[in-house]
């Protein structure tokens, strides 16, 4: 079972390495969106420090949304998705591999860049650590839930926007617990509660979402 997941991850990573522009642009989108907020609300440090967790998380959600269509659309276009569905393995396992690969190239980099941007917002060191950890912990859930949306909207016109419409409401719990963890740390209350809830969400998503996505893919491949 792990062999097929590893094979799919390996394949997707190799493809991602040969098409780095896509990944890098999504990361730059993250940076630009975060930088827009101070320009919009003014540079006052107290205000920015308060806004920071929410702003960083919302930007992370949007950046993930940008990279989601890539998950299945490319494979669908050249016929390889069909072959994946015809492989003698449960499609849910294949999707699990794709979701993990997606997280490695889109969620993980976000977690690495976020603390740097957090400094721009004058967050304390404790807050930065919790922020990084929270994004690291929460982005797999974003990839998992997003996969369901990507599978449902496969090949539809208006794909990207429609995908956002479907997936963003489902992202709200991750947003609340993720930003809440940092807020709680800043307020001196400790973010453990939020982080554990976030972890629960992520494990539940990685466990169940690939199977829902597989069902959605089968519907789309009819």
């Amino acid at each position, binding site marked *: 079972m792990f062999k*097929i997941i590893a*094979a*799919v991850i390996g*394949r997707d990573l*190799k*493809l991602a390495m*040969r*098409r780095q522009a896509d990944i890098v642009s999504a990361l730059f989108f993250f940076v630009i969106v975060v930088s827009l907020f101070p320009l919009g609300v003014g540079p006052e440090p107290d205000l920015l420090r308060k806004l920071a967790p929410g702003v960083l998380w919302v930007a992370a959600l949007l950046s993930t949304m940008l990279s989601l269509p890539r998950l299945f659309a490319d494979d669908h276009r*050249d*016929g*390889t998705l*069909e*072959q*994946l*569905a*015809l*492989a*003698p*393995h*449960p499609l849910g396992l294949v999707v699990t591999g794709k979701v993990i690969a997606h997280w490695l190239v889109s969620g993980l980099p976000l977690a690495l860049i976020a603390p740097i941007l957090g400094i721009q917002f004058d967050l304390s060191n404790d807050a930065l650590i919790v922020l990084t950890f929270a994004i690291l912990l929460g982005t797999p859930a974003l990839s998992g839930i997003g996969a369901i949306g990507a599978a449902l909207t496969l090949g539809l016109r208006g794909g990207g926007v429609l995908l956002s419409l479907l997936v963003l409401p489902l992202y709200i719990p991750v947003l609340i617990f993720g930003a809440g963890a940092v807020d709680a740390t800043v307020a001196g209350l400790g973010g453990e509660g939020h982080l554990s809830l976030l972890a629960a969400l992520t494990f539940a998503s990685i466990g169940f979402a690939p199977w829902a996505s597989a069902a959605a893919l*089968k519907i789309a*491949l*009819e």
Partner: protein
Amino acid sequence: MLEADNLECVRGERRLFAGLGFRLEAGELLYLQGKNGAGKTSLLRMLIGLLPPEAGEIRWQGTAIRTLADEYRANLCYLGHLNAIKEELTPLENLLAAARLAAEDLGEDEAIDALEQVGLAGREDLHCKYLSQGQKRRVALARLVGEKRPLWILDEPFVALDVAAVDWLAGIISGHLQRGGLAVMTTHQPVAIPAGRIRELRLS
């Protein structure tokens, strides 16, 4: 042994066919014919298990394919209109990846040999995006060389091939049938397959 029983197909509120059945034994080729839009591709998609029929059942070795699921797909090789190759990978990488996904053993030498057979010798290490359309199609066809899975489902495999390639592919299919394989094929051009028993099914 592939068996279809009382199949019905409804696409977009229109019934394409109903009560369709056939039986295919080892060494036989089923030649699917019919006008465009008659339901040939839909029938193929039912046979590969991606499209659930509105009614009826498809059986492999006596068991319904819906029950067999993974097991059935382990016996299946499908070649559709799309090439199913990644442009960022080389032909060699594509073949090896496809084999790995199908849980098949394919050595690098065998893969290179297959590519040579389809006329891509010397181009194994070029990223596929630099190949012409015809060459990309041949990478897809190279999968059939040494393909051990017994059931081949081919959707218009001869399209856009030159005379030599048509002969080559007909030979590959014949060899497969002679080894006891089964094949279901749609094609608009009449092609002579030297060996194997041919059955025809016309959709109207």
